[in-house]
C-alpha cells in the first residue's frame, strides 16, 4: 500500500531583544545565575502588569515578511490559561485569532501563521538532600518567543530538514535570533500523519527534537512506524511522542484523549495593536537582503558558480567578507571568482583575518607568479642548457637530481617563484625535450 506523508511544523524561536517581552528585564538568560533577571512582571507577583516590547513586535513582522505573510493591521494578545509551575501567572500571553502575521509561503510550504508570545520559566528536576525536587529559574520567563506554524505541506524528512535549515538561515540573516537548537533558542514540534490520498483524522506530535539531525531521524522512524501500523489495518493513536537517540526510536509521551481547553480570551492588560501601512512598509524596507536574493546577486554580479555562491551566502559573515574582499580585489585586477574559490577551497578563517590582509596575500602570491610568466621560461631554458648532464641523468631515471635544477631556478629568480611550480615546469620540459 502506498501512503502520502503529511508533515506540519511548529517552530518556536526566541527573539534576540535586549529586554523581555513584557518587562524590562534582560532577555539574555543563557548561562546566567538562576533568578537574577527577574522582576514583579516576569515572576507573576500580585499587581504586576505586562507592557509589550515594541522591538519584539517589529522583529516578528520582519520574520513574517521574510516568510511572505500578510501582516494584520489589527492584532491583539490573548491569554492562554493553563496551570504549570513554570508559568507564573497561570496563563501565557500569546496570540489566538489575530496573530501579527498569517497566510505566508516559504520554499513552497504554506505558513499558517507567525505570532508572538512569552517563554516560560525553566524547570530542573533533581535530587537534593535525598529528596526529589523541581527547581524553577525565572530568567527565561517572559523572553519573547516567536511561533511559526506551517500547513501540513511537507512530504519527507529531507524536505523538512531543508526547510528548517533555510528558515534558520533566513532568521539569522534578519539578526532576529541565533536559532540554536542545542541552546533552545530554536525549538521544534513536528506533526506527522499518513493518509491514502488526503490528510487523515489523526496526527502524531513529535517533541524533544534537539537538532535537525534528530528531527530527520525521528520523522523517518515515525513514517515507517505509522506505515506499518496502517498496513496492519490499524489507525495510529493520536499522541505526543519523543525521540530516544540512544535507542533510535520514538516513544509515546502523552496520549491526547481530550484536547486541553486553554480558555483563550483577549488579554485585557494590553490594548489591541494597530499597525498602519506606513509602519509595515517601513519595516519591510528595513529588511536586509535575504539569502536567496544574495545568492542570485553573487552569481550575476560576481559571475560565481551556483555552488560557490551558495557556500558564500550560507551565513552573512562569510558573505560580507567575500563582498569586502571582492571590492578590494577588483581594484587590484584580481578576478572575483578567484576570491570565491580561495575562500571556499582553502577554508579561510575569516574571523582571524581582515579582508585587506586576505587580498594582499593573494596579490603577493600573484606577483610571485608574475615573475614566472614573464621570465621563468627564459630562466628555465638557460638552466637546462647549462646543465645538460644533469638532464640526461634524470632522463635515465635519477629523479632526485631534478632538485638540483630547482635550486638553480630558485637562485636565478632570487626565490621569487614557487618551487613546486618550477619543479613541475622543469619536469614537463625534460619530458618533452
Amino acid at each position, binding site marked *: 500500500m502506498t501512503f502520502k506523508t503529511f508533515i506540519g511544523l511548529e517552530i518556536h524561536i526566541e527573539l534576540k531583544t535586549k529586554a523581555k517581552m513584557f518587562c524590562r528585564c534582560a532577555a539574555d538568560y543563557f548561562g546566567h545565575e538562576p533568578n537574577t533577571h527577574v522582576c*514583579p512582571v516576569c515572576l507573576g507577583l*500580585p499587581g504586576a502588569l505586562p507592557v509589550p516590547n515594541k522591538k519584539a513586535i517589529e522583529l516578528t513582522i520582519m520574520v513574517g515578511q521574510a516568510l511572505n505573510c500578510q501582516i494584520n493591521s489589527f492584532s491583539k494578545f490573548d491569554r492562554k490559561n493553563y496551570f504549570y509551575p513554570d508559568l507564573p501567572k497561570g496563563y501565557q500571553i500569546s496570540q489566538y485569532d489575530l496573530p501579527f502575521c498569517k497566510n505566508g509561503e516559504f520554499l513552497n510550504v504554506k505558513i499558517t501563521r507567525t505570532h508572538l508570545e512569552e517563554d516560560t520559566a525553566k524547570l530542573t528536576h533533581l535530587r537534593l538532600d535525598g529528596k526529589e525536587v523541581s527547581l524553577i529559574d525565572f530568567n527565561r520567563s517572559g523572553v519573547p518567543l516567536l511561533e511559526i506554524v506551517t500547513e501540513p505541506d511537507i512530504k519527507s524528512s529531507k524536505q523538512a530538514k531543508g526547510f528548517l535549515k533555510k528558515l534558520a538561515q533566513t532568521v539569522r540573516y534578519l539578526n532576529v535570533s541565533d536559532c540554536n537548537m542545542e541552546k533552545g533558542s530554536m525549538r521544534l514540534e513536528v506533526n506527522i500523519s499518513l493518509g491514502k490520498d488526503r490528510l487523515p483524522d489523526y496526527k502524531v506530535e513529535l517533541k524533544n527534537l534537539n537538532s535537525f539531525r534528530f528531527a530527520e531521524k525521528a520523522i523517518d522512524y515515525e513514517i515507517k512506524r505509522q506505515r506499518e501500523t496502517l498496513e496492519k489495518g490499524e489507525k495510529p493513536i493520536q499522541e505526543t511522542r519523543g525521540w530516544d537517540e540512544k535507542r533510535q526510536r520514538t516513544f509515546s509521551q502523552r496520549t491526547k484523549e481530550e484536547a486541553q481547553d486553554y480558555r483563550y*480570551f483577549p488579554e485585557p492588560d494590553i490594548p489591541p495593536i494597530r499597525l498602519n501601512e506606513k509602519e509595515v512598509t517601513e519595516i519591510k524596507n528595513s529588511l536586509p537582503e535575504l539569502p536567496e536574493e544574495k545568492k542570485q546577486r553573487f552569481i550575476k554580479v560576481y559571475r560565481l558558480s551556483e555552488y560557490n555562491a551558495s557556500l558564500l551566502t550560507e551565513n552573512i559573515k562569510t558573505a560580507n567578507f567575500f563582498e569586502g574582499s571582492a571590492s578590494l580585489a577588483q581594484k587590484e585586477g584580481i578576478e572575483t571568482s578567484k576570491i570565491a574559490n580561495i575562500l571556499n577551497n582553502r577554508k579561510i578563517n575569516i574571523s582571524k583575518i581582515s579582508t585587506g590582509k586576505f587580498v594582499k596575500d593573494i596579490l603577493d602570491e600573484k606577483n610571485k607568479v608574475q615573475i614566472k610568466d614573464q621570465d621563468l621560461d627564459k630562466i628555465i631554458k638557460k638552466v637546462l642548457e647549462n646543465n645538460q648532464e644533469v638532464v640526461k641523468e634524470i632522463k635515465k631515471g635519477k629523479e632526485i637530481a631534478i632538485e638540483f635544477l630547482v635550486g638553480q631556478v630558485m637562485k636565478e629568480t632570487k626565490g621569487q617563484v614557487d618551487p613546486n611550480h618550477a619543479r613541475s615546469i622543469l619536469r614537463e620540459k625534460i619530458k618533452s625535450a
Partner: protein
Amino acid sequence: MNIDQLTIVKAKEGLKKKEFSSLELVEGYFKNIKKKNSQLNAFITLCEKEALLEAKKADKLISEGVKKSLLGIPMAFKDNFLTRGIKTTAASKVLQNYIPVYDATVVDKLKKAGVIILGKTNMDAWAHGSSGEASDFGLTRNPYDRNKVPGGSSSGSATAVASRMALAATGTDTGGSIRQPASFCNVVGLKPTYGRVSRYGIIAMASSLDAIGHLTKTVADSALLLGITAGQDKFDATTSPSPVGDYLKNIKKSVKNIKIGVPKEYFREGLEQNVKSKIKAALKEFEKLGVKVEEVSLPHTEYALAVYYIIQPAEVSSNLARYDGIRYGLGRKMFAGEAKRRIMLGTFTLSSGYWEAYYLKAMKARTLIKEDFDKVFKKVDALITPVSPTLPFKIGEKTADPLKMYLSDIYTVTANLAGIPGISIPAGFVNNLPVGMQILGPHFSEDLLFRLAYHYEQKTEFYKKKPV
C-alpha cells in the same frame, strides 16, 4: 485642630499656617482609630509606629520650607494596593502574610507627594462583594448604623473616612466598589475613567473593568487627589496619554446651562422609593443652579448586570490563577466561598463550547452598552442616577443569596463596562442612613463631574453630618 471638621484642603492649610503639626494630625487619627476601630473593623493592618516616624520627618521638612502637595497628610489604603514592606492581603487568607517588594504606582505617587500611610483598610476578599461582609478578616460595620453594612468592596476605606479614622482612603471600583460604599457611608467616592489612573501594583480583580480611585469627605479633596494619582504610567499599557487637568482649580467654574440627562432605565422597579425621592430632590437643587435636566434613555441597561457577571468572573478566574502558593502566599485551598464561586463561573463561561454563548455574546452586549453612552453624551453633558437601589442593608441580609447581593451593583456596573467616570456624592439621609447620588460623564470628563458635584455639595453640605 478639630479632626471631625478636617478635610485634606483644610489640613493642608492648618499645616501651612502651623496651626498643628503632622505629628499631631497623625496622633489624632490614631486616637480615633483606637476609639472606634475595634467596633467598626475598618483596618486590617495599622502602621502606627511608621506613621509617627514619617510625621516627624514631614514636620522637619515643613519647617525647612520643603513644598510637597500632600506633605504630612495621613491617608488609609485599601488592602489591595501593594505597599512595599507593609503586609497586603486583599483581605484573603491566601495572602495573610504577604509583604510586597514594591509599591503600586498610585502608592508611590502619593508617598512622593508626602502622604503618610496610617494603615491598610478592610475589604471584601479580592474585592468580591458589595457589603464588606466577605472579608476573611471579619466584616466591617457602617458607622452611621452598626447593624448595617458599609457597602463594598471598599468597605474599610468608606468606614474609615466616614468615621474620621482617616482623612481620605484609596479604593478600587470594578462594578461599584468605590461608589456604593461611599453612598452607604456619606462620603465622596470617585471612579475615574478607565486608563486615567494606573492599575500597576494593585491586586487585579477584573482587568478590563478595574478603576483606581479614592474616597474623601469632600469633592475638593477628591479633585486634589486625582490631580496626583492620574496620568500615563509606563508600567500600565492601558493608561491614557491624555493630559491631566488641574481639577481643583477648575472646580468652582459655573455649571449654568450644563445639560444633565436622567436615564429612565435607572428609576424603574427595584429602586426603593425613599432613595428615588432623594435623587429627585437633588435634581431640583441642580435646576436651581441653572443646570438643565432632561430625561434620556440608555436602552441596553437591562443587560448590564448579566454582561458584568460574565466578563468579570471570566477575568477573575484568570487573574487569580497566579495564587498557586508556589512563589508566595498560601495554597489555593485558602480561597473562600465567593472567590471560588467566581473562579468556577469564569472558568465555565470561558470553556470551549460555552465561550461563544457567554463570553463572546457578553462582549458584544458590552459594546452596545458603550454605544448607549456615546449616543446619550451627544445630547447631554452628564447623567445623574442613584448609586444603589437600596439604603444600607442589614448585616447578614443578603449573604445567603448571591444574586440579591449582585443586584446592589445594578446602577454602577454600567460605568465600568463603558469605561466612563462616575462620582458618588452624599445626597441626604433617610432614617439617619446616608443616600448617595451618582454623576456619570463621558470619558475623561472628571473635570465636569467635580464641578457639578462641588456646586451641589456647597449648597447641601450633607458631608458635615457625622456618624453618631
